[in-house]
């Protein structure tokens, strides 16, 4: 085994961001959401990820605001810790060790120093029962504190978000199954309310969610049949009442009262945000077509911002229930990747099926979803049990000018519907435009398709279970209005066998199609050149070698064989008994990656077809089979000289495990580089306008203003704002000092060539800045008044044509001062 201590398998992006309810900060500027093992802080206006709060070692299962400090949040995780964060600076303040995996966290203003967490019952990790416990957080200065003071509040609660604090934290309501339990803290007593499971008239009474009115004694519960019940008078065991609201046709996934309690928000599978007026319950507002099913709703403390999490890994930010202001979209993974992983040759983005009927373009380098391409172009009906169109195949041609997609819909009792769509890249709109739709291109499912890489022809080959493969050619009808469109050029088959895979050679001169146990090799003029076969087992994967190994054709069969044929002699070069589940060729080198599954684990071998020795191998990569993998080209070549890491120099191997985790291989040099790049973080995303913009923009305005004597008055405060921005913006969000330095020197210094008249205001500004920076804070606060008032006399404003001695001295001093300041900036 090759020593490979430096190559790690790492998670790379694409975490769920809809796992738990998002938290909106008090000033509505940030959103916090649990994303895998970290907490992500997003700017609510620019949609950018500002911080990634890392520290938990397992799935983060809940976030709450710290009621005593509006700049802090608590997060809990399955690793048994509750952590306190300062999200503006992204700093971990404290860690409380609870010791049990935590599934949710609740907090109330009226219970200071206590958090309520959901932990498994009976200290048994495998148990299916959960309890809600109160944890007293010890006051201690240490970074890590053990919090062992637990007291059970409620037994048998559901593990995720089905509890809510009532008015002033007097009671907590939790639902599970057919039971609503309300615990009164004063009386230390709980009331339970049961509903009948009553299946008549399609009623499914099971509770799904709960929310308590913040001002009144009212509990709203959501149910599986779409009903919402409003419970009142529940402090008596018997005389409780409830009223029912019904709009949803599917289960109510989430309920939330607005902070003033005037409205109740609900959401479900219909993807419609419903706003019920609390006092007039028959009045409601709708916000339809938000995307996937709504899983969580969060409301900002001032009630101006709503935030819905969706099942398609999306967060929608809604302003006062009328306008969608921003969408934060994560990688949509669903239950499985139907399309193969592909790389868009233009944007280098990972392409796979995302939202229903869409292809998603996911930038691997930025860990960000670039855009969704609507393939099906049909209104999505949010209803369970409906057969929807699904994108099952996608392929790009080598230059990224064409995209081919296949969508299919299976319906019980009727034929399979397949559409093949071809999309042309439009330079103007920078996206793909539908060019040709072929309905029913094959009689059965399309199993694979690929574009010919040859530069002369634009050709697509599709193979299907109906026993045929078809070649589609772009035909140019320039004489008619229609323009270029695709048409079928050739239909081929081999002894009515079902083809399973196809592959073009790197130059497009050969097409290999695997018909069960036989590999057929075709020329571009559709002559059957040769057949290769390797008896037992059907061919699963085919791959041509590249560059120096282009004379080899590799195939894997279901009966644990990996074969390599030499195409010059048409004979088997070598074969080896491995159960290869996935074979991938690196488009930039000769390397091939083979994922083998052995005894429930996956192994990886990287090898060149021509050499009898693997370049790299890793055993027990992950549990289960590797579903999909792809080589993504790097934007910058790595220069690793270790032999076993060289295969990662040009491209990176990404793969999906059985549990739909996106993983990749990374080397030490790469991590070093990543670390370095994160240090020179360029953007501050706390606000839409970055300080970088402010500085540069101010600088420009200043330049303009300098030429315009009328703008003098306005300039003065502006210059000082620029300085202030620089001084008061946290250093870690500033551009690199070397970058700022030259610009600042230029903006502050008086150019020797410019006329004295123009120098005058600059100089005055310098003075004001100097005063500002040296003087008291009061002066700084009052600078607006200073700028607006007539403190600067009209004579001064007009300015003397020549500089006085004193002014020159002053200027020199300012220069000196600035330089020293800048050098200090440089040092830090």
């Amino acid at each position, binding site marked *: 085994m090759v020593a490979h201590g430096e190559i790690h398998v790492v998670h790379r992006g694409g975490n769920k961001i809809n796992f738990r309810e998002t938290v909106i900060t008090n000033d509505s500027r940030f959103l916090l959401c649990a994303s895998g093992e970290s907490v992500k802080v997003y700017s609510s206006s620019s949609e950018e990820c500002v911080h990634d709060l890392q520290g938990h070692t397992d799935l983060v299962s809940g976030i709450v605001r710290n009621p005593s400090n509006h700049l802090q949040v608590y997060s809990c995780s399955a690793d048994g810790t509750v952590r306190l964060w300062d999200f503006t600076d992204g700093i971990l303040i404290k860690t409380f060790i609870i010791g049990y995996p935590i599934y949710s966290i609740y907090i109330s203003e009226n219970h200071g120093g206590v958090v309520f967490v959901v932990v498994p019952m009976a200290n048994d990790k495998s148990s299916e029962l959960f309890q809600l416990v109160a944890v007293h957080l010890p006051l201690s200065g240490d970074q890590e504190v053990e919090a062992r003071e637990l007291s059970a509040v409620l037994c048998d609660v559901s593990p995720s978000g089905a509890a809510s604090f009532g008015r002033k934290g007097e009671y907590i309501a939790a639902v599970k199954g057919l039971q609503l339990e309300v615990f009164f803290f004063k009386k230390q007593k709980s009331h339970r309310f049961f509903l009948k499971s009553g299946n008549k008239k399609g009623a499914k009474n099971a509770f799904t969610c709960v929310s308590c009115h913040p001002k009144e004694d009212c509990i709203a519960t959501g149910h599986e049949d779409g009903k919402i019940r409003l419970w009142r008078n529940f402090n008596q065991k018997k005389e409780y009442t409830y009223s029912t609201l019904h709009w949803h046709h599917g289960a109510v996934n989430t309920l939330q009262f607005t902070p003033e309690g005037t409205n109740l928000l609900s959401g479900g599978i219909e993807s419609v945000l419903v706003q019920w007026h609390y006092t007039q319950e028959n009045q409601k507002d709708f916000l339809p*077509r938000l*995307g996937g099913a709504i899983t969580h709703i969060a409301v900002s403390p001032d009630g101006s911002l709503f935030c819905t999490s969706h099942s398609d890994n999306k967060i929608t930010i809604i302003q006062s229930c009328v306008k969608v202001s921003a969408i934060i979209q994560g990688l949509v993974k669903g239950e499985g990747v139907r399309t193969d992983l592909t790389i868009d040759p233009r944007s280098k983005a990972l392409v796979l099926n995302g939202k229903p009927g869409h292809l998603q373009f996911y930038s691997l380098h930025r860990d960000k979803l670039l855009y969704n391409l609507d393939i099906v172009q*049909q209104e999505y009906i949010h*209803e369970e049990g409906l*057969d929807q169109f699904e994108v099952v195949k996608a392929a790009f041609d080598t230059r990224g000018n064409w995209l081919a997609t296949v969508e299919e819909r299976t319906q019980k009792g009727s034929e399979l519907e397949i559409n093949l769509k071809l999309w042309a890249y439009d330079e103007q709109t920078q996206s793909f435009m539908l060019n040709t739709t072929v309905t029913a291109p094959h009689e059965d499912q399309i199993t694979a398709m690929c574009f010919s890489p040859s530069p002369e022809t634009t050709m697509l080959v599709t193979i299907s279970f109906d026993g045929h493969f078809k070649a589609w050619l772009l035909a140019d009808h320039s004489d008619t209005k229609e323009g270029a469109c695709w048409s079928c050029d050739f239909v081929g088959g081999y002894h009515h066998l079902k083809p399973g895979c196809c592959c073009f050679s790197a130059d497009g001169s050969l097409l290999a199609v695997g018909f069960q146990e036989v590999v057929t090799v075709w020329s571009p003029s559709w002559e*059957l050149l*040769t*057949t290769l076969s390797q008896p037992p087992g059907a061919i699963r994967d085919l791959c041509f070698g590249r560059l120096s190994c282009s004379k080899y054709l590799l195939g894997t069969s279901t009966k644990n064989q990996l074969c390599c044929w030499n195409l010059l*002699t048409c004979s088997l070069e070598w074969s080896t008994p491995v159960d290869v589940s996935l074979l991938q060729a690196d488009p930039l080198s000769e390397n091939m990656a083979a994922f083998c599954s052995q005894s429930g684990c996956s192994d990886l071998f990287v090898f060149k077809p021509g050499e009898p020795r693997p370049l790299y*191998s890793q055993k027990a990569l992950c549990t289960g089979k590797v579903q999909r993998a792809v080589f993504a080209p790097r934007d910058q070549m790595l220069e690793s000289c270790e032999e076993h890491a060289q295969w990662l120099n040009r491209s990176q191997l990404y793969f999906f495990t059985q549990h739909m985790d996106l993983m990749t291989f990374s080397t030490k040099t790469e991590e070093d580089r990543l670390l370095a790049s994160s240090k020179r973080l360029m953007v501050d995303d706390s606000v839409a306008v970055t300080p970088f913009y402010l500085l540069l923009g101010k600088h420009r305005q200043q330049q303009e203003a300098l030429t315009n004597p009328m703008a003098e008055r306005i300039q003065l405060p502006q210059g000082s704002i620029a300085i202030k921005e620089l001084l008061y913006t946290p250093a870690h969000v500033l551009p690199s000092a070397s970058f700022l330095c030259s610009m600042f020197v230029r903006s502050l210094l008086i150019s020797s060539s410019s006329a004295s008249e123009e120098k005058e205001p600059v100089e005055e500004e310098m003075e004001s800045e100097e005063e500002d920076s040296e003087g008291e804070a009061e002066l700084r606060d009052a600078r607006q008044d200073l700028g607006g008032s007539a403190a600067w006399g009209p004579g001064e404003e007009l300015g003397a044509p020549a500089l006085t001695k004193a002014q020159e001295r002053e200027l020199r001093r300012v220069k000196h001062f600035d330089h020293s300041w800048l050098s200090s900036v440089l040092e830090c």
Partner: protein
Amino acid sequence: MASFKSTKIPIYPKLGEKVTPDTLYWKNYKAPVQIKEFGAVTSIDFSSLAPHNYAVTASTRIHIYGPFSTEPVKTFTRFKDTAYSGKFRSDGQLLVAGCEDSMVRLFDVSGKVALRVFKGHTKGVHVTDFTSDCYHILTGSDDYTCRLWDIPNSTELTSYKEHTDYIRCGITSKLNRDIFITGSYDHTLRVFDARVEKSVMTMDHSQPVESVLLYPSEGLLVSAGGRYVKVWDLLKGGQPLVSLKNHHKTVTCLSLSSNGQRLLSASLDRHVKIYNTTNYKVVHNFDYAASILSLALAPDDESIVVGMTNGVLSIKHRKSPEEKREMAGKQRMQPVYRIFVKGRNYVPKKDDFLVSKPVKSHLAKYDKQLKKFNISKALDTALESWRRNRKPEITVAVMKELDRRGTLKNALAGRDEQNLSQLLNFLIGNVVDPRFTPVLVTATEMILDIYQAVVGQSSVVDRQLVRLQELVEREVDYQQDLLEVLGMLDTLFAASLPRKEVPCPGSSRPNGLAEGSLGAPGPQLKAA
């Protein structure tokens, strides 16, 4: 919040021929004017003089029509028997015609009585023509001879008796007054020079020749006979150039379009085919009601005149540019929203803050109803009579959309007799259309399921159901027949394809497992 995506109406590929410049050109004719003649129209000839009157020979008469008249301008009736081949002289003053009674008559176009009568043939004369110098007449007759006549003296100049069967076509050279070509039922074409006593060239068409035509350059000769149209190169001594076989009955007449780029052939199979003269591919095709005997094109292709065996003369006039423009103008009369968009041409000033109004997308009525989940109403809208009749694809698309939403059954249910019969009517009209079958079969099944209980309550619905049943049965029979034909064709193709061995170099060794075991050692993919 995404906007509502409207129902996708698929664009079905247009079946039939592709639109080429040729089809556009040849389709640009008005509906034909039809004139009934007394007998089969055997010959049509255009005067080269404006206004380009044309002489139509049918039965015992020759009618002369003006370019746009439906009544004859002039009629020549002094024939004892069937007249043939009325031809204008190149100056348009004289007209010659043969007759079954073996006499050839020469008329002044303005007069009525024959100026000259040429006697000498012993049988019917089917071919007459003026030579290019306008003083002689060429005739060809069923007595196997062709003769040249002098017009001033009305005497016979020469007679050639080389053909061994009826002479049914002939043409004189427009460039040389002495040269003419005749075609005969003895399968030959002969080129004669009046200055020599014998034919100078003979070509074998191998079918009875019905029509001959010279290209304007007179280097190429086209002949029609049997199902074939053949092109001969006269400059290469009568070498055959192309043989075209595009008709399935005897080709009776040939004509060239005015620019000489297109060749037209008319046949008894009721088609006129238009060929490109550079590659001799058929570029367009006209269909007529009866077998065509004669065909002529007005100068500049202004009109196409076709005479048929049933005595009908069909005249198609080219659409004039004004009419075209009128048609285009009519389309432009669509309502314009110009009036109500106030301040559209306002140019914003420098510091103006631009507030853009969201563009409201227009949704069709059925889409609006679908958006509100009013499924039955959406189906009703889609079934409105004009949409159902003119754009069945919309109706089908809405049905498909409903089916996708799983609500088609609900939308189809609960209809009264009138509604249901409307629906059934639509199904009867479209269920066998291959474009719509997949969707409509599901709908039909659902309707039968839903309305099973009410069968027998309404005679209208029952009648329609029976019709639907018959339709489906017939369709099934068709499909079965088609499958049989397909099977037969497969056998034929399989038999006709040459068997090709797949080359397998080094076939002495199998390229399978055995090779691997004794070949080069494979890479050891086992980690140590």
